[in-house]
């Protein structure tokens, strides 16, 4: 049992939660007031969950809880007891990219990247429900996420590309890579 810097919580009341996060079981005792976003970031170390407003507008903290898209800043961790949670870290393995992530990369659908986890999760959710979304459907679905950098144009492009990739269609429009990462 620990607070966000690893120190004991002390006298404050806690409640035990168990859930499955990105395929791994997690059990922790947390304060009932702990937001799911803070739980995922500070207790589980999933920093891909970004926090941009903590009042449910920006969508940077978007994750999937039991298959539903959720703004994790608007839920308490204790509400997700026994839930299945998927975050952006769980989309792919070993540093490879999920087709949605690939599409965002190829379409230059991110700049500062702070909104990106949320958009990737929303796009993932959209394509699960609607494998070939129209532009209007994409706009509607992504309207609960804010991006301050890209003006959304390339995000639409990424949605189309991802749909194509996941539908197994050929995609030969990729730009060359500069390679590596630091």
């Amino acid at each position, binding site marked *: 049992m620990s*607070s*966000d*810097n*690893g*120190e004991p*919580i*002390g*006298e404050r009341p806690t409640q035990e939660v168990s859930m499955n996060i990105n395929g791994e079981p997690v059990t922790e005792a947390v*304060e009932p*007031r*702990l937001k799911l976003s803070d739980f995922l970031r*500070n207790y589980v170390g*999933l*920093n*891909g969950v*970004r926090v*941009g*407003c*903590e*009042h449910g*507008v*920006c969508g940077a903290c978007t994750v999937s809880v039991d298959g539903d898209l959720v703004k994790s800043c608007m839920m308490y961790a204790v509400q997700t007891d026994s839930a299945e949670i998927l*975050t*952006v*870290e769980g989309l792919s393995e070993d*540093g490879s*990219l999920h087709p949605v992530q690939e599409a*965002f*990369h*190829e379409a*230059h659908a*991110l*700049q*500062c*990247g*702070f*909104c*990106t986890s949320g958009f990737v999760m929303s796009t993932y959710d959209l394509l699960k429900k609607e494998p070939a979304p129209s532009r209007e459907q994409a*706009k509607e679905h*992504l*309207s*609960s996420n*804010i*991006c*301050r*950098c*890209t*003006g*959304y*144009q*390339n995000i639409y492009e990424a949605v189309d590309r991802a749909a194509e990739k996941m539908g197994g269609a050929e995609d030969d429009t*990729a*730009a*060359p*890579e*500069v*390679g*590596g*990462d*630091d």
Partner: protein
Amino acid sequence: MSRSDAPAASDAAEDADEEGFVGKGLNRVEDHRILTGRAEYVHDIAPENSQSMGLLRATHAHADIVDIDTSAAEAHPDCALVLTGEDIAAEYNPMPCGLNGISEWALAKDTVHFVGEPVALVVAADRYVVEDLIDLIDVEYETKEAVVDPIDARQDETVLHEELGTNVPDSENMHFGEVEQAFEQADNVVENQYSWGRISGVPLETAGAVAEYDDETDSFEIDCNIQLHTLVDDTIYEPLGYDPDDVALNVPPDVGGSYGTKIAIHRYCTLAAIASQQLGGTPVKYVEDRIENLQGGDMHSSDREYLFRLAFDDDGTIRGIDVNFTDDFGAYPRYPVNQALKPLTNVTNAYHIDHLRYNYELVLTNKTSQTAYRGFGVPQHLYALEMAVDEAARELGMDPYEFRQHNLIQPEQMPYKLPTKNMYDSGDFPAALTRIKELVQEEEQVEDGLLDPDIVEQRREEGKYRGVSYTVHVEPGVSGADWTDRQRSDRDSLSDREMDDVEELPEHLRCELLDDGRLLVYLAADSSGQGHQTIVKQLMSDELGLLPTDIDVDYLDSVEAPTEYGSAASRMAVMLSGAADGLADEFIANLEQLAAEHWDVAESDVTYQDGSVERADGEARLSLVDLAGLDTERDADEQLTRAAYDYQHPVYENEEYEEAFTNKYPVYPTAAFAANAPIVEVDIRTGEVEILKFYTLRDCGTQLNPTIVEGQAHGGIAQGIGAALMEEFAYDDSGQPQAVTLFDYLLPSTKNVPEIEMEHTETPSPFTATGAKGTGEGGMIDGPPAITTAINRALEPFDVVADQVPATPDRIREWLRESDAS
């Protein structure tokens, strides 16, 4: 691996072929870590045992602090530290301001000057406990009259800062050309007021700092997302009372957006550092929450009231402009006071106008202070100017397109010197304006197009009025450093200055060859999404004949880096082009020296090419790996596999700019430009504006990476839409902020940003190493005037003009109600 022996299978090598990597839309190297959730933003940095800091903020706009009772907070079992303004003042210094003679403390001392001003800090292990502690502090205030209206504030009935004695800490009335004569002689003069609401960049990532004081070395390490960390580090080491070398600011490679705004987050860095020092070196972390950010995060930007006059002849020729404005700087005239001056760089926009007056006043009110925001004061000016141009065309009954065309600077006038002494480097403005109109006519003024006359008429019957306007805008790029302190200088003596008195700041790049033959390049500038690492890879690959995959790019902290400017003012494309060019020359010269020494031949007998040095006889060759090994064996003080370069300024040596430099007029040597044509539809019942499509033709000279250029334009336009239609930090009469959540401060979403149809032309800059021009700010600069003039067109039947932005539904309904025509 060098390009010469790259495997044929490599996409990148194929793509570069003979031409190189610059100019290609290479995908970004930054993306992978971000997409997988593994990028480390400052919010993610949490050293072991770090403590969390929170701030208690003022609830009144203007009040004296009578008493602060911190005893209950201090008695809390988990409280590590509480400090008030008095504690800070006892041991530290005030923060520097943008003007002389005024002190701002990191925690308010005696008096609070805006809602949200930090009054006390608390530290605990857990952020949730921090919030509990904040609630336990009791402050007794004695409220004072709040100064809210900037126009009234100038009367000085209530003065914010006694030591200044006035709410107008800076003003200047500048004349260029024969402006009075021009106004007397012109056939017509229009005069109008335009108002630009308080807005800002509002990056998705809020400010954050993690500070650690080291007792042994008596120095600080601060991880933070400040922008311009090599330039504005004085705003942190000065209040701490330390030398620059004792306060290392380290900005993570990934920052969640800034757009200028994070230049001014020094309060947080300073307070976290103080808290860490007070705790004997425990790391202290502060992350601003969104409400703090919007309400009192030192983050607002330009808030202007214009009185604009424009003199013109009956044939439509503009004779002169008379620009008067106040800018509401809030509680303290912070660093970006020179936002008031930047419009001098493109003061006539794309028009040839010889005579002008530029008269501004900075005003202080009980609101949060200003920071920089994309465009740095220019969007506001272009908005007012283009509104006045519209007004003049209306007065003459002339088509505003023709009126604009008639006044544009012609391509043969390039490079063009403005009356304010800055120059436009290159560009064909008339062609751009012609093309954008042609494009819209071809695409939309056709059957079933958005401007199909039948459809337009039909929509009008439903209360929806469509409009389009065609405008051209100049985006000044690069800036310089010397002019930026004009307002702290003795302005009367500036005309005596010579070029030797002008002090510019360079852009620094350095590199080192690693043992495995890879090149590590260090950026001194920080980044917040612009893709600098990718750009540097492209530039250095071409300079050295390497592949981008042979190069890594990292960042320097404020102590490792020399004092240099950094990334702002649409600088980096130009400055990195020059810096990479110079760095490669140095590096190649070093490698050639190393090889020549090794072979014991003259340096002229060896040649570097594509990742190796060859002897003139063609008999011997050293690869980068060989050279790295040789340098290690060489055992000399100076390593030849390292190089550093400071690129000074593209036009410092250009005599045409001398008058601007010596007089401290803003120098922005590149003129990117855009011709815009947004098609808007105004619902006269709801007042809502929908942008149906945004046509734009853009030119920023040589594009280093067209994909990145396009992304910058998209994002800028989206922010321009926000500024024109939605965003505003409003205040009530008592100085209470009305936009403290993202439910009130409305950011454009997918619902507000239309499809953007973009074309590009490339008119290289004659002044820069690659022909690139700066282009980070474009859409934010040229979006608002394009949109508001389109609203003017749409509402022409009602005689309504968008003389206030944001043009919110409320305002538009009010204008329509008040208009005689409706």
